[in-house]
């Protein structure tokens, strides 16, 4: 019906239609007036209906279509986490940590933050905070401590920890898929920076919350807790931990095994589904399908602006401004680091990175191949070129860490603020900003120094 749009003159028409769909969708996502999944799916449908992409492009093309590596990695990890979350191992670890800290506030806060950071590096951030927040509220209630400092600290720790690995935060999953970077590369390049950040963060906690004290009688409540009662299904807990460990080993070896991370995660999730009792309906129903369809819609909308050449045009602007060369992309890397952090503080970092990843590919094509190669199918030696590495890592660091600044900067922040409010401890936007912004700036400065020392 609308095929006239793709006939003569369709190029310019498509260019502006794709741009309009992208800009309007992004604006509505940022405004939060309509649920982001609805907008992404509607934008995707329009992209196909208006012949900006063919259905073949959208559903089957690796250049412009849905990135099934990301989709299956997310779904599989959600399945794994849902089953593991039900076993109570996280609650067991948290109570064990509180007892290890002898019921003292600051050591509990530090241990909970470390637990959250490690869990966030291996699992999804939102799931991690959903697991850690109830047990934190329990411990604070038992110790008669204000829970907000703990909740804020754990939210930050979750966002910092999630930065360390390929599977820790959705922006990293997107970057890994676009740049063909493997799990060990993420670990090797990002984890050292994250370790330094966590050390600095612990010092911050001491400065902000070192004065918290607790009554001796209340401490005894915590010491009397029996963490073993937290685990309801021991065989399932054991199976889950074994499958998780094997999946992590699989991630570590996926490059050598020539398996995509999605395949490793799918193997882990399906194995755990197979060996756990019960109907898969419940587990599958708990997959965040709304997030998955948000990604699917986003891939198609962005495929549209890649195909019409908008990404290529913006990439030229970035090249003009940051002046990357085949020997150094220092200005590009640092501009991306700080701009990504600034934007991610107020904008969802998933659509941002989904847009920026093809832009970096286009820039790499222009700078390293004179624009002669196919930007969405660059050779591995280009994707992993030492000159391009700091650009990828700066994008990941900026996008993941920027979210710490505000209450709306990351999904984990929104979830924690929601639970805190329902539990009678509302966290105002200002209160979040007062702690979040200094933490974000601290981690960004560490990132800047790290990128400078390691890559330039």
């Amino acid at each position, binding site marked *: 019906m609308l095929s006239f749009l793709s006939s003569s003159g369709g190029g310019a028409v498509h260019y502006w239609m794709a741009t309009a769909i992208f800009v309007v969708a992004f604006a509505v996502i940022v405004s939060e007036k309509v649920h982001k999944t609805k907008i992404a799916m509607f934008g995707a449908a329009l992209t196909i209906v208006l012949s900006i992409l063919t259905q073949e492009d959208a559903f089957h093309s690796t250049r412009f279509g849905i990135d099934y590596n990301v989709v299956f990695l997310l779904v599989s990890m959600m399945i794994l986490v849902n089953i593991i979350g039900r076993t109570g191992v996280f609650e067991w670890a948290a109570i064990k940590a509180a007892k290890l800290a002898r019921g003292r506030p600051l050591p509990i806060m530090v241990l909970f933050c470390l637990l959250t950071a490690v869990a966030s590096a291996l699992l999804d951030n939102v799931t991690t905070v959903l697991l850690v927040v109830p047990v934190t509220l329990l411990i604070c*209630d038992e110790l008669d401590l204000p829970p907000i400092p703990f909740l804020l600290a754990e939210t930050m720790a979750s966002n910092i920890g999630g930065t360390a690995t390929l599977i820790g935060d959705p922006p990293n999953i997107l970057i890994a898929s676009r740049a063909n970077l493997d799990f060990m590369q993420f670990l090797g390049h990002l984890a050292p920076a994250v370790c330094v950040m966590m050390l600095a963060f612990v010092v911050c906690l001491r400065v902000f919350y070192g004065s918290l004290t607790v009554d001796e009688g209340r401490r005894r409540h915590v010491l009397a807790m*029996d963490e073993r009662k937290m685990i309801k299904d021991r065989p399932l807990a054991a199976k889950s931990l074994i499958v998780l460990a094997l999946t992590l080993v699989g991630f570590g070896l996926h490059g050598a095994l020539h398996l995509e991370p999605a395949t490793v995660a799918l193997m882990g999730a399906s194995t755990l589904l197979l060996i756990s009792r019960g109907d898969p309906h419940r587990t599958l129903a708990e997959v965040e399908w709304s997030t998955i369809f948000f990604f699917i819609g986003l891939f198609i909308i962005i495929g549209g602006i890649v195909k019409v050449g908008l990404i290529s045009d913006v990439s030229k602007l970035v090249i003009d401004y940051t002046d990357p060369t085949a020997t150094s992309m220092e200005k590009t890397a640092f501009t991306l680091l700080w701009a990504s952090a600034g934007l991610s503080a107020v904008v969802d970092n998933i659509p941002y990175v989904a847009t920026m990843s093809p832009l970096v590919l286009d820039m790499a094509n222009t700078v390293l191949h004179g624009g002669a190669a196919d930007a969405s199918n660059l050779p591995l030696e280009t994707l992993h070129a030492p000159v391009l590495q700091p650009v990828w890592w700066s994008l990941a660091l900026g996008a993941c860490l920027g979210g710490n600044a505000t209450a709306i900067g990351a999904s984990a922040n929104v979830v924690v603020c929601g639970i805190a409010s329902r539990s009678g401890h509302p966290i105002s936007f200002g209160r979040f900003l007062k702690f979040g912004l200094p933490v974000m700036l601290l981690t960004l400065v560490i990132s800047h120094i790290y990128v400078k020392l390691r890559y330039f």
Partner: protein
Amino acid sequence: MLVRDALIPTPLTVQPSATLLEFIHMILNSNQTNAVVVDNGILKGLLSASDVYRRLVPHYIAMDDRLAPAVHESYVEEQWEKFKHHRAHEVMVTELDTLPPDASIMQAVSLFVKQGRKTVPVVDEGSRYVGSVTRRSVLQLFAQRVGR
């Protein structure tokens, strides 16, 4: 069969100003676990033992019931001391499904089954409370009409 056929005209009622302590004593002296909150004949809400439990159980247990064994033994007593003087109007549920007396009994049964309701208040056109239908009163009606 209509709702009016299964109506209990005089179920437990409490004033909005009644305390939770008074409410607990009232239900312990009856075979009910809930009461309608009525003010000058107008239905204001429904108060049940579940609403009292919700005050005694912290939000984090509702989120993650695995944590229940970790709460110290005297927690419920401390909470009870805190909440026993709260008033019915502070705790009652105000978003209610009500039915008129001439509604079909199937509408009441549907609320029992699909919404998990135990009691459905019945109000007339002027929103005046005229009684309630309960799972028990509807079963009694069934037994009278079709169970013989």
